[in-house]
């Protein structure tokens, strides 16, 4: 296939399709759960459940760090997971080229990161992703919990980070457009894959952490 034809395909029809499926898919998954509804709770709350829900959604990602002994046993999970998410989300939104994409999609101009930070985030995200994957393969608990989905998703994301890194670093050789197209193709696949996999956990994060915070607020517990 001609390079530009391929390139235009992965950033044109395929990306549009993927984005539509993505937005429809995640909102389907979100509302499929939301519309199941809740029974009323008549017990008098001891704290403010709603405030707590919001607070939890904001601070929960760092909460694990307060668990001394768990943190020390699972440093890989906490540090790796944190770095990976920070990197992945940072790169997804604030890499200059991606910010343009988001401007196109949601019409909001996002701030962009300088390349040094982009590099740091890419390396740390890629490194922590590899560490997390190895950990998955070796830890007995994770072995029991992990399915093919996780490995596939990790591989896909790792390849996206890797091709993105190459596309950014590569100079000369005329391969740039192929690297970029591969990066975009894989990203399209990821966008398509998210609504059908556990990768859509980011929408449920708001629900489950929200509920957790709501319960905590109800019971007057602050952690």
């Amino acid at each position: 296939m001609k390079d530009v034809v391929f390139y235009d395909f992965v950033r044109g029809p395929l990306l549009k399709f993927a984005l539509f499926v993505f937005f429809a898919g995640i909102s389907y998954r979100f509302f499929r759960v939301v519309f199941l509804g809740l029974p009323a709770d008549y017990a008098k709350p001891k704290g403010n459940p709603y405030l707590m829900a919001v607070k939890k959604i904001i601070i929960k990602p760092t909460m694990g760090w307060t668990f001394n002994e768990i943190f020390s046993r699972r440093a890989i999970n906490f540090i790796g997971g944190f770095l990976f998410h920070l990197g992945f989300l940072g790169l997804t939104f604030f890499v200059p080229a991606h910010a343009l994409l988001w401007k196109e999609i949601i019409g909001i101009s996002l701030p962009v990161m300088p390349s040094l930070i982009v590099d740091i985030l890419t390396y740390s995200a890629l490194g922590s992703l590899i560490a997390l994957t190895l950990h998955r393969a070796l830890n007995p608990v994770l072995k029991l919990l992990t399915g093919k989905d996780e490995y596939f998703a990790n591989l896909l994301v790792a390849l996206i980070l890797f091709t993105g890194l190459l596309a950014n670093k590569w100079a000369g050789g005329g391969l740039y457009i192929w690297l970029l197209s591969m990066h975009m193709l894989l990203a399209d696949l990821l966008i398509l894959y998210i609504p059908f996999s556990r990768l859509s956990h980011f929408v449920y994060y708001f629900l489950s952490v929200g509920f957790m915070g709501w319960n905590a607020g109800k019971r007057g517990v602050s952690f």
Partner: protein
Amino acid sequence: MHSLYEIFKRNGYTRRDFLRYVALLVSAVGFPPSFLPNAVKALESKPKPVVIWLEFQDCAGCSESFIRSTSLLPADVLLDYLSLEYHETLMAPSGLQAEEAKREAIERYKGEYILIVEGSVSPKYKGVYCTIGGKSNEEILKEASKHARLIIAVGSCACWGGIPHAEPNPTGAMPISEILKDKKVVHIPGCPPIGDVMVATIVGFVMTGREPALDNLGRPKTFYGQTIHDRCYRRPFYNAGKFASSFEDEGAKKGYCLYKLGCKGPITRNACATVRWNGGLSFPIQSGHPCFGCSEPDFWDRSFLYSPLSVVEGGFGWKKVLAGIAVGSALGLGSAYINKKLRGVK
């Protein structure tokens, strides 16, 4: 007959100049340095090659660019290095005599002449959209290409159809390779191509007697092997995430990357960033305007000239996002309703 070396000598160039020039040409056509002795020998003895230059649905921009070559001065190219037997924009005779000149050149240099084509060809309705001397362009092209030693398409129109081929392609314009399906065509795309690139490709062919190494789209690898982005002097700004977002901002003054302004450098294979234009003086990016990819097939129809490459081809926008979310929510609502009904959840 006079060899190129004699021409050099006559023009006051020294043998060192000559060798340096040959070295440049050798590297330009992508031969290893070991080829140099052969090339010198070839140049010292080869007669002037005959060129027939046809113009169809064109704007003469490629011809203009050809006579803007600076590595070899156009007067030398036209009078010394090449024998341009037919070129409508430059030749002396008109009408019958012009046609006669072409016919004679084809006769006399059968299988030896180089055919250069500028402009797309419209075979639609028997070619009424472009006739010369009462003949359709398709017929003229087929006639002239029959005995050509080498066929070169210059400019994006001849290579890919170019602007006449842009949506909705009113005249059914075609690249010449679609007419000459059984022939090999060397493509030198660009709107127009760089004059030096055209001259180097043609003279390089004369020198080596071989056509240059081509990529899968028939372009000389030497000049079209890398993207503008690969060799752009503003690339460090791209890597550093520094972009100009308007022609009037500080970034534009400081020479930041023009990616956000729609630069197509990353997907455009051409030599603008290395050879540059009009004596290596500048090229569009250096003068502040994003590359719009004029050497790539169908670049006119890719997207709005100034829309950045990373955005969705054809646009997406929040309306489609909302549509997606609406579809998803409706499905979610329906699904939850059915689930609750079927499973008796209160």
